[in-house]
């Protein structure tokens, strides 16, 4: 124990153990993605991990911090993996490198390092990439042509002049553009790009990983359940009111990395609220914002911006949601 004061016994869960379990929970989703869309995602993950470790090492040295405990707490690697699974797997190498560098250096260490970052670092990296390179960030691998290993290598290092053969829009993107063209919603939903899109299975894999995290008590139920419930409710509400313009709830829940967000992104402990009521409010607002951005906003997917916006409100949420102490009225 640290110095001669009680308590003299300690639970064995450490920060690195928590982060490690998060990585373990991400693996099913990554494997399914690999199986369906090729090795791109693995390249991203490996590059992200290497970039992040080097960047953190250099920054810790520059800040005169002890390197070993901070490097081995895996928190930077979790950020790297979350960013890597959020961006298209066919993106060239410099996308993930820039994103990772921004996440670690700007969003994490410039705010004070582990435990002090105000914003979710992975989401900050994603948002910067989305705004700076919108063309590349919206080209996702098509479900119909699994990219071969050699092609993936070429794509990764050299990019490609034309992605038409292998890239396509995401279901969210497709629905949005088609609705703008005034097509019938039921027709759009019936098209294979949405109805039979294998990205759904990636989502389900993340759901399983998330449930594993709840079982292991790494995260609590407040954030994921509230997020999914709110999204379900508001999507159903809009859908009931105007079925021609708004897709039903299952579409929203199964597409766009909803499960990834619910279990992995909004549950970042450092940038999120600490009280149970605060968590429920936070998840509720993120879900509302995500839905509004999806429908009325300029981007097809709004998780990054919704999370960043709510991160700003977290100190106030914490202050106002303090629970009642035992014996106080």
């Amino acid at each position, binding site marked *: 124990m640290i110095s001669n004061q009680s308590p003299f016994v300690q639970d064995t869960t450490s*920060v690195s153990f928590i982060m490690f379990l998060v990585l373990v929970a991400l693996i099913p989703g990554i494997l399914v993605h690999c199986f369906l869309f090729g090795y791109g995602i693995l390249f991203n993950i490996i590059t992200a991990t290497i970039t992040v470790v080097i960047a953190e090492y250099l920054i810790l040295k520059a800040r005169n911090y002890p390197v070993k405990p901070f490097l081995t707490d895996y928190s930077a690697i979790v950020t790297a993996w979350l960013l890597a699974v959020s961006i298209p797997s066919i993106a060239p190498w410099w996308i993930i490198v820039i994103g990772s560098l921004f996440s670690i250096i700007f969003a994490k260490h410039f705010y004070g390092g582990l435990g002090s970052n105000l914003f979710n670092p992975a989401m900050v990296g994603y948002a910067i990439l989305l705004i700076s390179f919108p063309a590349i960030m919206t080209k996702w691998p098509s479900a119909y042509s699994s990219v071969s290993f050699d092609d993936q290598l070429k794509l990764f290092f050299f990019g490609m002049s034309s992605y038409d053969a292998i890239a396509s829009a995401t279901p969210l993107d497709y629905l949005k553009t088609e609705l703008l063209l005034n097509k019938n919603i039921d027709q759009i939903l019936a098209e294979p790009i949405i109805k039979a899109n294998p990205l759904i299975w990636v989502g389900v894999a993340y759901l399983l990983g998330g449930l594993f995290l709840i079982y292991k008590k790494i995260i609590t139920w407040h954030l994921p359940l509230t997020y999914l419930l709110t999204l379900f409710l508001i999507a159903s509400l809009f859908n009931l009111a105007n079925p021609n313009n708004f897709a039903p709830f299952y579409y929203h829940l199964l597409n766009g990395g909803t499960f990834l967000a619910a279990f992995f992104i909004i549950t970042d402990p450092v940038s999120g609220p600490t009280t149970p009521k605060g968590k429920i409010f936070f998840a509720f607002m993120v879900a509302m914002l995500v839905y509004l951005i999806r429908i009325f906003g300029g981007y097809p997917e709004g998780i990054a911006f919704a999370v960043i916006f709510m991160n700003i409100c977290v100190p106030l949420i914490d202050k106002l949601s303090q629970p009642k102490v035992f014996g106080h009225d």
Partner: protein
Amino acid sequence: MKLFENIFKFNGGIQAETHKTISTAETIKKFDIPKKIILPLRQHIGRLAKINVNIGDYVLKGQLIANADGNVSAAIHAPTSGYIESIEKLPIPHPSGLPDFCVVIKTDGKDTWVDKKPIQWKKIGYQKTVELLISSGIVGLGGATFPSHLKLTKKDHGAKLTTLIVNAAECEPYITCDDMLMRERVDELIRGINLLHDFLEFEESIISIEDNKIEAIEKIKNAIKNEKNISLKIVPTIYPSGDAKRLIYLTKGIKIPKNTRSSELGIQMFNVATIVAIYRFLEFGEPSLSRIITITGNIKKPRNYEVLFGTPLEEIIADAGGQKINNQTFIMGGPMMGFALPSIQVPVTKAMNCIISAEPKMLKNDAPVLPCIRCARCAEACPVELQPQELYWFSKSKQLDKVEEYNLFDCIECGCCSYVCPSNIPLVQYYRFAKSEIIEERQHQEEANIARERNEFRLSRLEREKIERAERNAQRRAQTSSDEKSKLVEEKRKAIQEAMQRVNKEGGEKL
């Protein structure tokens, strides 16, 4: 209904390994009378006891050697017969390692009792009995050492006492002294409960015990078979279920509000050892002279001992065989709330319920302290439903007014938050620091207020004297003639000169 048996569960708490079987294999051993008895004068909450013996006096076993000073204090008795050898500052079991006043008795081995008589409390009445209890030296033997006579009030703020809860939980790991007491002396306990029941006119008595004490539960169940006033409540083994307010909530479902004593709601709680002590005092006239102490952990022959207060701890540890792995570290109390003894050359006191010889993993201090990752596991574990992470941030940055705002003084320092923290932050250390700082600041503020008042009074006194002097001078000037005045002045001047010469001479000699 069995389904609703444990319907009340407090928030949080932890389930750690209890390590109780280490010290329950053997029965309680009565430790021999040591050659020297060292009795600290402060073994209780409240004021130091006032000595009423002198060096060289011969004292008998059970003789009062220090009176309680006021109401919030307790008496000290000689645990065996012998001669008062000295009264001096000696090391006591305290985290600071600082010495405090102790009475040292050189024992004569005869163990002669003072003339003790049972207290006929029914005859002498309630008031007189409480006065006698003040001089019984009985304090809470669960570790808190609160003078017990203060808890033996029949009414508090007009509320009549209805429920007696017997705290048999013993929730901290390693400690088994209450468990063994119940296994071996359950009849004394039951008689004590009945006595208290009649004395304070309770309506019901409940023994609350954790479910891991299987033998004790069996013994109690047998003993209370025909007792209609006493019932048994088995609570789940979660630390800290033995904390008074938590146990009341588990037993009765009532949350005692802040700044309220449980007696104001008709509930009173005593530790099993304290009840046995009160029983022995009222039934046989025996004041508080000994207690059961657990010696456990990294030790060759762990067991429970019945020891007289003032027995040097070294001798007991030697009798238990000494440490298996020698690391010279012993913890007084439990691993969650105890403290490391600066040395074992200390006597056994009323507060010493357990000595844990530190296991090597308790001293593992190479795990670094990482920054707080705001995971809020501490808040999930806190039995008082506080927000330990907020208390930590404010204590760390020394924002003491904010720490108080976030209810720092509700913290019972149970250690659950530090136990679960993944970053290894020693949270309780920060709270203890903040509490001491705040209390010291309050004290300084009070002292400053008094100094201010005294200063203002002095300034007004000087004003007053100036005015009076002016008036007197005016009067005297009117009366005395100028000749007489110069003669008086001359005499005074001569006297001052003589005094100065004297001083200079003495001063010169001294140098």
